[in-house]
């Protein structure tokens, strides 16, 4: 009998601990999801002018009657740069519709007026709300810029271009650069060799024998903007990184490390590529031991390659920059 009382007491405690239903619910109200769609307040930016370089951001406000999938598209009126922000909510605010000056597809934004369009991914409306914001200063990126070609040719750089047909290697200023105004074009036909041309960016351009980079190769990212020509999808680019490990002012291929990162350009237009420095593979059988010493980088070379049987090849590069902690967010 005593044991039965124990069991009864235990069950009573357990039953009494079962809760009453909560008087609130999880997630958005179903009425906000399945009710009628209405726009309660127009699309507005938090400010008319924005100075991204000084750390400012801009966010957009809009009140809706229900939760919908929406897309905010910001387009640079001069550059054509695009930033796409998507979300699912009934309110656009600082939490879900914040723009920090970054771009979704190259080019990057300039000093320009930007058109902002809000569209809704629902069958209930085809309304597009719009506003505008003026970028007084574009976003500045932290990092070590090897070059963005805006200062023209540096005499400390060196170059080699094959004597093929229609060779066109050089800095261009034609309004199509993904960052500011200038980029480096690489094009031509070489029917005897994969290499069509190359350019060396030497540390001497900075007045040093090595580039001023972090020694943590696991934390360092190499970034570049690379152009793919839809008419000539046969280009490859090899980025080569030569280290001066004994700090004698020069790279020695026989006992110092060279690392190579080759990309096959199978896209159209400008694309941001990024790679962690420690992930780049050896290009000379680890002659220097195979350890990535990013703080001893003596030279970055860009080699434009194409199958000699494939005819004319065309690509371009811009904005070569090392960033720490994360890939560049252009």
């Amino acid at each position, binding site marked *: 009998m005593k044991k039965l009382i124990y069991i009864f007491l235990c069950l009573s405690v357990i039953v009494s601990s079962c809760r009453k239903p909560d008087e609130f619910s999880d*997630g958005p109200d179903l009425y906000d999801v*399945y009710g009628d769609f209405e726009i309660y307040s127009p699309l507005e930016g938090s400010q008319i002018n924005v100075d991204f370089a000084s750390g400012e951001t801009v966010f957009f406000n809009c009140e809706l009657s229900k939760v919908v999938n929406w897309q905010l598209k910001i387009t640079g009126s001069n550059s054509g740069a695009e930033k796409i922000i998507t979300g699912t909510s009934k309110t656009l605010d600082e939490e879900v519709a914040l723009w920090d000056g970054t771009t979704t597809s190259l080019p990057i934004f300039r000093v320009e007026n930007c058109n902002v369009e809000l569209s809704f991914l629902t069958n209930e409306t085809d309304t597009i709300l719009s506003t505008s914001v003026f970028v007084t200063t574009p976003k500045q990126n932290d990092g070590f810029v090897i070059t963005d070609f805006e200062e023209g040719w540096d005499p400390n750089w060196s170059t080699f271009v094959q004597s093929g047909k229609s060779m066109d290697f050089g800095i261009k200023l034609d309004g199509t650069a993904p960052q500011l105004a200038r980029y480096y074009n690489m094009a031509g036909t070489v029917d005897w060799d994969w290499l069509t041309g190359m350019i060396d960016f030497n540390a001497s351009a900075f007045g040093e024998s090595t580039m001023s980079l972090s020694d943590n190769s696991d934390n360092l990212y190499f970034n570049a903007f690379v152009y793919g020509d839809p008419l000539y999808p046969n280009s490859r680019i090899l980025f080569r990184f030569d280290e001066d490990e004994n700090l004698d002012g020069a790279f020695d291929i026989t006992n110092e490390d060279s690392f190579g990162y080759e990309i096959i350009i199978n896209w159209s237009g400008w694309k941001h590529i990024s790679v962690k420095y420690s992930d780049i593979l050896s290009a000379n059988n680890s002659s220097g031991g195979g350890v990535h010493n990013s703080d001893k980088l003596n030279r970055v070379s860009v080699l434009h390659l194409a199958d000699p049987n494939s005819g004319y090849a065309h690509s371009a590069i811009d904005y070569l920059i090392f960033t720490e902690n994360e890939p560049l967010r252009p």
Partner: protein
Amino acid sequence: MRCFLIILFSVFSSGFAFSQNGKKVQFVGGARSLNTLAELDSASTPKRSGGYALLDLGIKINPNSNTEVMGMFRINNEYGGFWGAGVNIDVRQLYVRGVANDIFRYQVGNIDYKLTPYTFYNHNQDILTSSIGTLGIREDVFNYETFYSDNTWRQQGASLNFGLELPKVIKDIEVNSFISRLNRSDFNFVLDRFFGGGNVVINKDDNLEIGLNHVSIFDLAGTAKTDNIYNNNVSSITFDYQLAKNNFVYGIDGEYGVSSLSQSESPEDSLTDYFVHARSYINFDSGLELSFGILDNGADYRSFGAQSRRVSFNQENNFFNRYMDLTNSTEVLRPISLFDMYNDPQLYNQGISVGLMDHNPIISSVLPYGIASFNRQGGYFGVIYDDPKEFFDLNGRVYLLSESRGQGTLALKSFLMSELVATLHANKLWKGKKEFNIQLSHNHQQTTRNGEFDFESVDFTTNQLNIGMEYEVFEDVYLMGNYLKLSASGNDQMPIRNSEDEIINYENFLVDGHESLISSGIKMSFSKKSYLAIVHDRYQYRFSQITHEYDFNQSSVVYVLKF
């Protein structure tokens, strides 16, 4: 008071014996060959053939009587591979285990571990019916591949177990602990993440057992350049109190505890809740066992050691992953079906997953995370009958549950789930020597919700039926057959969650269809550990609201050897 330590080979991890046959080195492992010809009627290339032969070769070394070192290598050769092409060599298992100072039992490397159903447990949420026959062969394969045994999860880490005996106070105390690493740092934004815990199980006497359990998933500060430390802690008390009478045993058992989930940089998003689960039972000597249980799992109860799912539905199929949408001649992704879950071990999760994994309401909607599902309260009734004459076995359970917190509305969903497995050993009827086993397994799930508005209404029903048969026509030669059918109809408002597992929207999930499999085969057993089977499957997918219908036929030759 005398107190001394004993070694307890507890049930919390797999048992083993050290070199009992005196051999210093033993070879263990298995081999398997699978060759398949499959045809999917609307794929761009409808027929595919393939297969593999693999060998798992394990070497157990006993350098002394208290230590065992085990390394198992897998050599996998795809059919058609030649001179090394298509051949993979992997390390499948690696561990060291033993007994230190004749007191502490340890294991380092691969450990298969579990604690309690609410703290650390590998629930089976998706294969809800039991299988003999051809599907039993497939279950054997994916259980072997995924290391799912006895509801343990395979971890890479270390475990330590020992026992205390206090004869004048209590019967004994078992202490079990483990630690494993879930992911490693990237030195920037991802910290080293560990999963550790343990329990103390006190056996007061033969009648009362009390356990104190704690597990924690935690980030190790300083292993990356972020201070955003993640923590998921679960603590619980388990109990089992039973009494024996002349011809039956009765008692109560259960688990009660609390969980918390937090990230240091967003304390406002922390979740804390409790859970309680208690069951009373009575077991008769006649083989009949009855039980009645209640549970209340809070809406914010999070325990990823127990809520990690075996199958994530946020992935693509590996076999015929795309097929043609005949309405517009475009290729579409083929969703993971119940048949795929029997066919492809690669769909299964191999470890603890932090965060709520996607589930498929067609397959599991009432308890998508097993008994550790959050936001469930109610009761259940269970019956088990194990015929002493081994003619008939039955295992059934009925759950009546509801939400404790609504999703998007204060109206609560109600759940009904019944599960039944009945096995008939028909040859016992006529005392035949050749086996003839028939198994019926059924799972019914129903979700309903009434509300003020039409869009609140939910009425969703699923049924899984699995009939299996094995008949020994000649000695060690079996004819096998299975009929598997999964049907679902109705609508449910499925929550869509963001990366923080917060509900941000709902999907009006609406289906009315089924998938079915008729499978037949023959199995020749060469010994208890080896057999050859030839299996033919005819499968139909008829959930036209999800994606277009297709038929799938498959013939397989399977050879399994264990040593």
